[in-house]
């Protein structure tokens, strides 16, 4: 199985990437647990089966801007788009800027083929300076991914600066969200097949009353 994380953190290292890595790690573990519970032959299954790729949007910032201008994605951006499209599960993490996802985060999804997230198991997460921005996940990220027909895990994970200095529940939320994503990935609906409409059918559709 392939798990792809998109991290829109801007500094290096960033707390957005830190949260991304925690979520990835927890999801890989949760997929392993799921498999162990379900499969009879436990011995053959291990967490190595999950292939992980993390896309750092900072590295693609210029390519994303160029895509807006030219209408096509350059090589590096194309590779990132293909990774996201082919993933069995997606973890999308952004810093909260001005009451919403960052512009870079939104831009990446603006230039992605809108059908590529259809039925995609997705975990949304965000970071911010204070906990007061946490509902941006529910008001901004969740509707955006709903629009793209992703299947978004019910638990979204927000990490404020202070969460890195206490044990007030961030690890629990990470674990809960990861377990949900792992479940969605294991029981994922098959992707819809692309189908070319034969010409006769296209013509016939026009002769029917609208």
């Amino acid at each position, binding site marked *: 199985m392939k798990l792809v994380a998109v991290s829109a953190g801007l500094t290096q290292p960033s707390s957005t990437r830190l949260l991304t890595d925690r979520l990835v790690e927890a999801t890989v573990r949760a997929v392993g647990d799921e498999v162990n519970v379900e499969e009879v032959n436990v011995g053959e299954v291990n967490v190595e089966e999950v292939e992980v790729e993390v896309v750092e949007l900072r590295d693609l910032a210029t390519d994303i*801007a*160029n895509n*807006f*201008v*030219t*209408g*096509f994605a*350059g*090589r590096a951006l*194309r590779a990132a788009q293909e990774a996201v499209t082919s993933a069995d599960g997606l973890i999308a993490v952004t810093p909260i800027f001005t009451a919403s996802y960052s512009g870079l985060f939104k831009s990446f999804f603006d230039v992605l083929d809108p059908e590529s997230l259809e039925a995609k198991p997705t975990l949304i997460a965000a970071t911010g300076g204070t906990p007061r921005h946490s509902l941006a996940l529910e008001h901004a990220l969740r509707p955006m991914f709903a629009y793209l027909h992703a299947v978004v895990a019910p638990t979204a994970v927000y990490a404020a600066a202070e969460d890195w200095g206490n044990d007030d529940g961030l690890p629990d939320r990470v674990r809960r969200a990861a377990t949900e994503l792992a479940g969605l990935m294991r029981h994922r609906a098959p992707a819809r097949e692309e189908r*070319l*409409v*034969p*010409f006769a059918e*296209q*013509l016939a*559709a*026009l002769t029917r009353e*609208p």
Partner: protein
Amino acid sequence: MKVQFGIFSVGDVTTDPTDGRTPTEHERIKAMVAIALKAEEAGLDVFATGEHHNPPFVPSSPTTMLGYIAARTSRLILSTATTLITTNDPVKIAEDYAMLQHLADGRVDLMMGRGNTGPVYPWFGQDIRQGVPLAIENYALLHKLWREDVVDWKGRFRTPLQGFTSTPRPLDGVPPFVWHGSIRTPEIAEQAAFYGDGFFANNIFWPKEHFQRLIELYRERYAHYGHGTPEQAIVGLGGQVFMRAKSQDAVREFRPYFDNAPVYGHGPSLEDFTAETPLTVGSPQEVIDKTLTFRDSFGDYQRQLFLMDHAGLPLKTVLEQIDILGEEVVPVLRKEFAIGRPANVPDAPTHLSRLGEKNS
């Protein structure tokens, strides 16, 4: 002619970024004519004009322009790039282009396109969400008007016809050859394949992988509909070049035009864009080398059009470019493309070749 080579023009009025001068519409229209005449003089085969209905573009009335060029040329094939099959009345297209075909003694073909300017649809009373159905229905009617003397017809988008004859009838009973242009829509490749028409992929702004899928689909469906093998399907491609004897001179001269070009300016670097797309800025030999790779990517094909007169390049420069193309590039490409081209791959269609097929 195995492969036709030519020029296609968008007809944009763009300020020259090097001196800030903007041509008038009159100057630009006359420049397009001068470019077409130069194309014939330089030994090229095709001149194609775009169709637009908004500034800063001048060519809203292609048959008027092409009719004028027809009178001043004797060999050049006159085409469009594109004809808006969605918002033009197919009856008027049938009449206008049959008339042009007679005046030009058969030196006419068309490229159908849907158009990418949103407001043009409502300006002409159409709905952009119906773009593909409009292209399908309108072309089906056009196809019929050119092939049946008396047409009874009823469709979704236009008033019905009873006992209608489109005049003049196509020259020698042979309708103009039609290319269908699309940069992303499989339905249009399917349409071209269904009719056995040509498919033109204007590949100049995007990486080749994208167009390989579309052209492969067209070729496969062309065979499916019984017009021949996939290799026999009729494919046209775009190209975009700027040449000087020395590569670095070409880059230095073209860079300000690239950096400020309406389509891709203020985006990627010239170097990145040339690596990813067919754009070649360099010596004639570099243009030859790049163009020869199109055959490896897309198979043997029938028509190669170059975009040369955009982004504010002055007319004098464009005419020089066409001379270089005609003298140093196209003769070599003709020779190279002929080598190893399978005998069963058809030559580019012309009025004469199609008349021959009709009579045989």
